[in-house]
């Protein structure tokens, strides 16, 4: 899932303080799972904003909505008939949702209510960590299902480097060395011979370095 973290309330207050009627828009997908921008978080933020502005003596109306997804036309269209009554929207979706809403409702200011962090997993409740950087050329088949692009600080394709000590990365003692994990798992799978193969230079043009990316599939395109 896409993992996001809540923005501080003060930052959101600062963004919307000049408006009279605000809509807080949540998303039922990834940000709900990582407890940053689902229906519950929408309710909490809206309540906090209402209290803050009431306390400041400002008459600001704060409404709430949570869409199934903010990254698809069909769900964003649900707001078509009501969007004009709002001076601004705070979207608690990931950066994708915020942008898609801004594209669709061109005349309405849309503000981000979360900081979008990475694509990752829930290690335990309250702890999320990165697993994929969407490099566009997946090599997990060769690395025992452990991604050196997202989990190695240097994104090494032939690791580990000299900074790997007792299974930990030199940048943090809390961070596992991805290449140690790869070697351990290859050993477990009795595929350690694959470790001997030198990985060729990766084509980074499919990664973010190649500019904004698109996937066009004519087989499903309408």
């Amino acid at each position, binding site marked *: 899932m896409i993992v996001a973290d809540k923005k501080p*309330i003060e930052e959101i207050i600062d963004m919307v303080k000049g408006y009279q009627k605000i809509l807080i828009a949540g998303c039922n997908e990834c940000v709900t799972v990582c407890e940053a921008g689902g229906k519950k978080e929408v309710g909490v933020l809206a309540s906090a904003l209402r209290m803050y502005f*009431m*306390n400041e*003596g400002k008459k600001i109306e704060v409404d709430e909505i949570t869409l199934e997804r903010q990254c698809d036309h069909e769900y964003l269209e649900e707001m078509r008939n009501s969007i004009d009554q709002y001076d601004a929207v705070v979207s608690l979706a990931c950066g994708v949702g915020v942008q898609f809403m801004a594209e669709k409702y061109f005349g309405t200011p849309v503000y981000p209510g979360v900081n979008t962090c990475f694509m990752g997993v829930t290690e335990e409740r309250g702890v999320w960590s990165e697993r994929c950087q969407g490099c566009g050329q997946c090599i997990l088949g060769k690395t025992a299902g452990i991604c050196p692009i997202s989990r190695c600080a240097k994104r090494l394709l032939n690791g580990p480097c000299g900074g790997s000590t007792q299974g930990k990365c030199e940048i943090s003692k809390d961070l596992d060395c991805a290449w140690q994990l790869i070697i351990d798992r290859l050993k477990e799978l009795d595929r350690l011979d694959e470790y001997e193969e030198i990985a060729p230079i990766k084509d980074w043009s499919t990664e973010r370095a190649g500019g904004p990316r698109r996937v066009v599939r004519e087989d499903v395109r309408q």
Partner: protein
Amino acid sequence: MRLRYPDTIRIIRVPCTGKVDLIHILRAFEKGADGVYVVGCMEGDCRFDNGNLRARKRVAQAQAILDKVGVGGERVKMFNLSSGEGPRFAEYAVEMTEKIEEMGPNPIKIAMQKAA
């Protein structure tokens, strides 16, 4: 036992304090409550394992938010006691009431009255 405790308190019964969500606490303040306290079982004694520990976290979240919006995080507090501790329940009620009286009314309530 016929214990007395302040009659300003409205008790909302929940099956477990784990049922108390952050939004429930915030809505109480939005509607004008001067204070909210959550009374759960002793930590480690939750019938549902960790309901009271979840409540504790939510109370802490509410405190942080109330501080930021100018209501005051001290208006919300978590207490733990066992079901056999009636006198302590009354003590906590007095303690919380005194605390809230010292802090004065919820500023949201005052702002709402002004706006009306």
